[in-house]
């Protein structure tokens, strides 16, 4: 028995999980309908796939949510898990699930997938016969992902950096790398049986003035970490930045470099997709204005030629949306996309060149670290502040980089901390902004820039 299989046996033997029958699961995946694989839909490249977020505690309500989404002609169904599952606290999830079932009240902010188990969940997923995407935020997602794949969920979001630096204060980053290595290995293993399993990174990070070069570098790194374990389909992603031009050049540079780095590292056969998130910062408390923001985002997703868009709802400022509101948002987005024709191809040569130079400099810093494996190189680079995510709560993150918006809404770096940016790139960034004299005014401007869509 392989070492990985031994580990899988240990991980899946859990009192809150189903008893795993790996032979049966392999058989299920090998014979699963193509419709369940998002990779099958990506291959056609005939439209921008629309996916909302969503998860309710009970099977019954989750089923209703999917039925409601099907009425809106949805492309990709979401399965968002609850916060206890994200922290591997299955006992609490169990308790809250029972309370939700008994009282017809939602005591969890998502679907406790491990507790429901794969045998039950698979019935729902095969019933609707649509691709399902797993949305979570879990540093140790090993059991969760085993359960998801066995259920017929063939797209797994997350990664050791993007599910760690924005969400956690002190979960050990080195452990996260190893736990996600397991996830990638299992995804790669199942990818040989049918259509490939798709892995997706979470590009929005803290969604708080993160400069494009940091987003792209982290997307490339998580992509390479997955590909090196044998993953054959990977989605890089980013969210609306606040400047349409910066969104366009982020997309252009990200697409170009993702393909280039994948090829250089021997994954010419891997499929790379682009996912665009609608605005991930604070939404206005006015629902009509929220609809406008969402619509603008849909236009940009089409402009940047994304393969999938992850949408928000007009209820964003108020909490978890109702299923009707969520489905309406799907229908609205699909309508906008249907009416958008003949989009021009856009670019800005100077901006693109600058961004590409920045990304290459940061990637060189990672690759030149003397450690022996990629994940250790990345770990060292984050630890020493050569990669630094603005507004991350994690203790390992340096938080030395300071960014601000220029007159066009572009995010510019005004303090580079330890980022190894070439001098000319940093000079270019700084030349774009006129900073107020007083530091207090600068800070007031940063506060204003964070809430750009309020």
């Amino acid at each position: 028995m392989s070492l990985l299989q031994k580990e899988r046996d240990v991980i899946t033997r859990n009192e809150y999980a189903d008893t795993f029958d790996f032979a049966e699961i392999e058989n299920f995946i090998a014979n699963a309908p193509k419709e369940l694989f998002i990779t099958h839909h990506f291959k056609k490249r005939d439209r921008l796939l629309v996916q909302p977020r969503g998860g309710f505690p009970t099977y019954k309500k989750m089923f209703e949510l999917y039925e409601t989404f099907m009425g809106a002609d949805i492309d990709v169904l979401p399965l968002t898990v609850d916060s206890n599952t994200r922290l591997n606290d299955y006992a609490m999830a169990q308790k809250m699930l029972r309370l939700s079932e008994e009282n017809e009240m939602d005591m969890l902010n998502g679907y406790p997938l491990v507790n429901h188990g794969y045998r039950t969940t698979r019935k729902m997923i095969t019933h609707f016969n649509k691709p399902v995407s797993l949305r979570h935020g879990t540093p140790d997602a090993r059991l969760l992902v085993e359960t998801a794949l066995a259920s017929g969920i063939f797209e797994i979001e997350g990664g050791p950096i993007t599910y760690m630096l924005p969400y956690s204060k002190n979960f050990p980053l080195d452990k996260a790398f190893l736990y996600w290595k397991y996830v990638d290995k299992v995804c790669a293993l199942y990818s040989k049986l049918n259509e490939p399993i798709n892995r997706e990174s979470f590009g929005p990070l803290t969604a708080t003035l993160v400069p494009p070069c940091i987003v792209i570098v982290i997307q490339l790194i998580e992509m390479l970490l997955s590909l090196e374990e044998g993953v054959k389909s990977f989605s890089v992603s980013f969210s609306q930045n606040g400047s349409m031009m910066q969104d366009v050049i982020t997309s252009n540079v990200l697409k170009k470099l993702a393909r280039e780095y994948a090829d250089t590292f021997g994954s010419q056969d891997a499929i790379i997709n682009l996912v665009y998130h609608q605005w991930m910062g604070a939404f206005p408390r006015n629902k009509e204005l929220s609809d406008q923001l969402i619509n603008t985002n849909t236009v940009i997703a089409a402009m940047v030629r994304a393969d999938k868009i992850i949408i928000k709802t007009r209820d964003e400022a108020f909490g978890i949306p109702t299923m009707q509101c969520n489905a309406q948002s799907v229908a609205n987005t699909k309508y906008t996309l249907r009416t958008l024709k003949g989009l021009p191809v856009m670019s800005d040569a100077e901006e693109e060149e600058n961004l590409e130079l920045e990304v290459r400099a940061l990637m060189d810093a990672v690759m030149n670290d003397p450690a022996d494996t990629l994940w250790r190189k990345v770990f060292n680079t984050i630890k020493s502040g050569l990669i630094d995510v603005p507004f991350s709560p994690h203790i390992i993150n340096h938080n030395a980089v300071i960014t601000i918006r220029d007159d066009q809404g572009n995010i510019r770096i005004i303090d580079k901390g330890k980022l190894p940016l070439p001098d000319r790139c940093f000079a270019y960034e700084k030349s774009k902004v006129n900073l107020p004299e007083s530091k207090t005014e600068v800070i007031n401007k940063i506060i204003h820039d964070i809430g750009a869509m309020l």
Partner: protein
Amino acid sequence: MKVVTGVVGNDIHVVANRLIDISLQARGFEVFNLGVNTSLEEFIDAVVETDADILLISSLNGEAEGWCRDLQFLRSEYNLREDVIFVIGGNLAVGEAKQDDIIPKYRSYGFDLVFHQVDLNTGLDELERYVKERA
């Protein structure tokens, strides 16, 4: 002057914490930022360790009260310097609450300055004024 700051309790709201850090530095303070998810005991430990003049606790999720009740007790247990200034600010109650109810309550826990839903720079201006008066 040295300031220890951070977000108290199971609260991960980091944006304001970073802005407080930058703002204090811009005003010339030496800042020791413990970040989010910090317990009161960790704060007091840091005040002792850094010999800080000010402890500035922030909270956004409204749960600060339960985490800060023991300030007087910890203050005497740790034998802190008499002149350390204790400040708390942010959103200091779950749901709606009146300034008139909240400020006296937190004062009674041992805070010298209490800012409930007060703009960051207004609060820091007042802190600087308070420091000057005390000197």
